[in-house]
């Protein structure tokens, strides 16, 4: 499986993600500079965490207009798995590939901590190796992770199974209905605030995050 990990100026989790995909899971993951990302023949793409373009203007706002997003859009249309982690999630929302908005955490602070999540929808390329309602532990680290959508949109997200994960028994960022991960209508594009690549070995505090990537390997649309 060939996976593109797109590197924007200011990406921070790009190498961590490539390391986990290639060295832990044995996949063919390539780090690709955003301006050079024109090849849509990859099987999947990951937009890693970080502070693309310094989060200037708004988190993810400038990266959403990078040429790389043209290729991401093409791959999304081809129903290929696209995962946005943290800043990657923010970019996908800014690019209009995912619904809703990500606002500043209600505590008005950056929050870095391990959290427990509940899987809401296992029918996506990033959760199919997990059971519905199962609990997984992964860390979060962000300033703008409070998911927001109006009541009507929330209803429609619920009805169409686009809410993929929620916090379980906690809500450190004040996010709407504990939502930490959503997908597009087709469920091939998923954004999540927690960092699966950081939950990739028992020494780091847990390896539940590997199941997110393993889902991608097992996925048959």
């Amino acid at each position, binding site marked *: 499986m060939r996976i593109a990990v797109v590197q924007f100026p*200011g990406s921070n989790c790009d190498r961590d993600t490539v390391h986990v995909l290639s060295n832990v899971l044995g996949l063919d993951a390539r780090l690709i500079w955003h301006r050079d990302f024109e090849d849509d023949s990859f099987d999947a793409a990951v937009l890693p965490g970080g502070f693309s373009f*310094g989060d200037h203007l708004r988190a993810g706002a400038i990266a959403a207009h990078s040429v790389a997003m043209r290729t991401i859009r093409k791959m999304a249309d081809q129903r290929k798995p696209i995962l946005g982690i943290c800043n990657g999630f923010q970019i996908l929302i800014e690019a209009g590939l995912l619904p809703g908005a990500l606002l500043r955490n209600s505590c008005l602070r*950056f929050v870095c901590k391990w959290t427990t999540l509940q899987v809401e929808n296992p029918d996506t390329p990033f959760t199919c190796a997990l059971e519905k309602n199962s609990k997984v532990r992964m860390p979060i*680290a962000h300033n703008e992770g409070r998911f927001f959508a109006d009541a009507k949109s929330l209803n429609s997200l619920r009805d169409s199974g686009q809410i993929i994960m929620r916090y379980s028994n906690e809500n450190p960022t004040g996010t709407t209905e504990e939502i930490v991960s959503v997908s597009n209508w087709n469920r091939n594009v998923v954004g999540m605030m927690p960092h699966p690549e*950081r939950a990739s070995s028992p020494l780091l505090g847990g390896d539940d995050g590997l199941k997110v990537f393993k889902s991608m390997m097992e996925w048959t649309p």
Partner: protein
Amino acid sequence: MISNALQTTLTAEEMQYARNLLGREPTHLEWAMIDAEWSEHCSYKSSKPIISQLPSTGSRVVLGPGYDSGVIDIGNDYVLTLHIESHNHPSAIDPYGGAATGIGGVVRDILCMGTTPIGFLDSLRFGDIKSSDHSKWLLKNVIRGIADYGNCIGVPTIAGEIEFDECFERNCLVDVVCIGVGRKDELLLAEATNAGDSIYLIGGTTGRDGIHGATFASRTLAADADRERSAVQIPDPFTKKLIIEATLEANRRGLLRGCKDLGGGGLSTGLSEIADKGHTGIDVFLDLIPVREPDMTSTEVMISESQERMLLVAKKGCESALRTIMDQYGVSYARIGEVTSTETIKIKRADETLAALPTQFLANAPIINRKANPPTSPRSFGSIPPPDTRKTILELLASPTIASKEWVYSQYDHEVGIRTIGKPGAADAAILALPNGKFAAVKVDGNSKVCHLDPYIGAASVLAECCRNVTAVGAEPAAFLDHCQFGDPNDPDIFGAFSLTVKGLADFAKTINVPCVGGKVSFYNEDAITNRAIKSTPVITVLGLIEKTEHITTMSFKQQGESIIAVGSTKAEFSGSEYFNLLHLDGGHPPQLHFDLEVRTQRTILELIRKGAVKACHDCSNGGLAVALSEMAIKGEIGAEIDLRHLSSSSRDDELLFSESNSRFILTTETPRAVLQHLTDNHIPGVELGKVTGHELNLVLPNHTIRLDLEVLQDAYCTSLGRILEPWQK
């Protein structure tokens, strides 16, 4: 203290010395360059003769003091680099910008060695945040400054400490440490050794921010220090992130001869130092330096401390490859000079030479031998009121210096890089996974209260405790950094305390055989509002190495039934303790430190850990046994039954609970008899105190028994800081 019309801090003697050596009157620009380079901040002119007594060699030391970072060989062709910086004065007037640019500065010291920054530690000191809104404001903004900068450049902040004391009310101390990792054969030095190489200035433009920053740091804070905001630089972490990526790539491709961080003293200092180390000269073309404002004078350009700039020495012929990399990352660059064999720094504008100073002259300030008074003997602390031990335990756990710092470190991305094995708060030191399969353990520590009472024992105790912390996680201490922070060195009492501090560090370092690989001295930490100098504050960073995964040890109680063993002797030693701080008692002699016993104890603990006999280990220090045991229970979420009557023959509850005697650990084990035997064989006191069990901490004392629910302990310890800083949050 601006001493003359040229706005220099040079003394009349220093100015005469400069004239004599040069054989002429320096130009205005030359005076400014001399002033910056000969400032205390850049030249260490007062401290050099003293700090030279620190041991700085060892089998693992690749480079010691005198470089931008210390370099340690960790085997398998890898090195670790480490450095400490402070940004005290800037943070005192602009806490957000000051702290952020402190982080930005120390990361350049790691980067310019050609190594990748992999972790920050912060060591902060403020006034009493319970009573002072000013200190609260400083703390919140310092932390936000560190968080915003460190998080944005993708380097985790993995450990730290905060001390609160009234003496820091107007002079907060903001110290940041950076750790880097790299390949030994890719190490870069801040040296311009080859004539014909090009000097590139990369990153941000040169502006009027940070003018006189080095001299600003080399005098006490004035009452109207707010007006010196122009001496504080402006942070831009996004540009720094691009500089990091571009510089590391240029180095990997072998394009660079050397690299230099532009910090205190700006271009003037950076250029003279790389030329001095390389025994060369540099011709600088002033017109080629990109400036932020068109009307900047030559002096402003040369001494500006604008952030996010690096000097790269590009090998002759590699210029175009370097430019390609800079273009890819969008990093601005300019070829501003050329290395020459003249051993002179020449600053040229058009055809005119504005300054021509011999490299060696500029880079080596005349040493000042300052007067040092012997210490006065400490006054008595008076009498200790009868203790309410249960209440005291909870108050200690909730005191800002001891309480959980989760409110702070949750604002730092401490996970990025996926190397952080030992998370903040989990163990006595942070633990980072290294590319060669080993682990680095790092800890930064200080204790102004103890150092204030006795600078010699105080400094040695801080170094000892820091080594103890690193040992407790299963690491062997490999190197340390010192950072001595004091008031005005013209005061013989202060310079005397500084001299004894360094002697204390040197003597203990020699006994434990851990070399000093770098450090910093920061004087003039006093201000014209309170007219007070800070207490002596040496801040120490110890780096240790853990050989195997199995040796990693944290402080939490692991399982019901483990035996709890106290290692070391507990005596009636309270001076400088958190217990005394709570009671507002000041004075007396700090806890003794028997160097040999301390070293023997640490080595024995490490042996026990390596044998696999230790399940949890915690250094016993601030707040004494009561706090150490509470922390182990809180982190493990298991209680314990403990009988402290076994500990010593003392009948005083407060002595057993709150004494801060040195050389003590608490560990848990499944094999108590073997552990106690090993301690006895090494002539180290050890006592089994009880067992890990239940959901409360049950402490049997000579005079009564205390039962503390885990929830009560957690509430005191975990929520206190948040309640003080954000009383409106739940």
